[in-house]
């Protein structure tokens, strides 16, 4: 049992959630899927006086939005992985969701929104969202704002999310013409956190030439970074393009994250490899 006593509520609307958060500020903890915050409370790493559970607030589900997708913050990994629109318009996110560590249970319980809010460097969501150029839609009782994912992740365990604010949804833009998706995750063994991830979206024309590309690497630096892919545009997805992204990804691995599983040096070493494999997965 969690040692610190708290008051629990599960409001039935987002407005009530926001009102509760406005009232309790930093004393409140938001519970989404629970997979991150509940064990932190169990072990005393978070000791809120108020717990606000989002489960009844209607934040789950995927909807179409301007040719792209809007993903409610409470959408689980399993819902993402099984949604054909996600597979079509943001295939890398579906791949990521299907590959979440922790088994089917965590894919049924965990939410991409929740994972994003904790900004854990060694987690799947940040790199995947930056790779897809997602927008994070934030709400508080007094304000609403949209933040690009690449700005939302500010550092290790640090998201641009104020007390009283809640992630309502994540917007993914319409995919580029001829879009293909690639996602690659490196972990040490099945039990491990992700060590390095890469997400790639490339537009490919009828002749197999890259018309546009976006590639992000997660887990290597303290926050995800976008790899400079300008040199591969105009060419095919081949060994030459792979070599170019290896170099580009490594040169940007300048602020490596280090944890019990892998040093920053190791993460730097594999940054190019994961980038290359994500690109080739999109081929």
């Amino acid at each position: 049992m969690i040692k610190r006593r708290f008051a629990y509520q599960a409001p039935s609307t987002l407005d009530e959630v926001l009102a509760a958060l406005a009232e309790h500020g930093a004393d409140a903890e938001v519970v989404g899927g629970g997979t991150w915050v509940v064990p932190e409370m169990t072990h005393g790493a978070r000791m809120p006086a108020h717990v606000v559970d989002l489960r009844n607030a209607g934040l789950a589900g995927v909807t179409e939005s301007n040719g792209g997708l809007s993903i409610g913050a409470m959408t689980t990994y399993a819902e993402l992985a099984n949604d054909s629109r996600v597979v079509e318009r943001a295939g890398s996110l579906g791949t990521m969701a299907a590959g979440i560590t922790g088994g089917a249970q965590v894919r049924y319980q965990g939410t991409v929104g929740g994972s994003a809010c904790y900004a854990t460097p060694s987690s799947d969501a940040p790199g995947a969202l930056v790779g897809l150029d997602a927008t994070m839609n934030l709400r508080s009782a007094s304000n609403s704002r949209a933040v690009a994912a690449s700005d939302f992740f500010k550092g290790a365990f640090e998201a641009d999310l104020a007390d009283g604010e809640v992630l309502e949804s994540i917007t993914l833009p319409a995919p580029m013409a001829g879009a293909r998706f690639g996602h690659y995750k490196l972990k040490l063994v099945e039990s491990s956190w992700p060590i390095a991830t890469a997400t790639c979206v490339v537009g490919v024309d009828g002749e197999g030439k890259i018309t546009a590309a976006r590639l992000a690497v997660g887990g290597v630096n303290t926050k995800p970074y976008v790899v400079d892919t300008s040199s591969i545009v105009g060419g095919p997805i081949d060994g030459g393009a792979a070599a170019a992204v290896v170099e580009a990804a490594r040169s940007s691995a300048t602020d490596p994250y280090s944890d019990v599983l892998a040093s920053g040096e190791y993460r730097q070493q594999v940054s190019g490899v994961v980038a290359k494999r994500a690109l080739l997965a999109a081929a």
Partner: protein
Amino acid sequence: MTNSIRLNLTVNGEARSVEIDPRRLLVEVIREELELPGTHIGCLTGDCGACTVERDGQIIKSCLALAASAEGSEITTIEGLAENGELSTLQQAFWDEYGFQCGYCLPGMLFSAKDLLAQNASPSEDEIRHAINGNLCRCTGYDTIVKSIAEAAARTA
């Protein structure tokens, strides 16, 4: 407890209502208030999977859920897997193939297997291994668990 709350849920097909401290994890309420100790606690971090139960048709790790958030849900635990007092095909296959040694991970393995077989009636070995990746076993090396699940699939076919 002044701020206790009432939790109403259906457990193994039976409507239950218990008074709980909101600090309770779902696994704790299942084991203690609902007196169904067959669901086990191994890590309380969502890693080992011994606390896996079914909630509204989906398997979850019950140490990652506040009990309060299970309000109104339908829960199935290992105590509810047998059918009319007879072991299910899956349970029997785990017995016949020695799919457990100490038995501690067994509730979670059974539910992960059940979830797999509900979606895929004849899984490959790789699919079986993938399906139980959320559950740790330190005794079997997984070999006999994989065989048990394959055997259950074969018997159901």
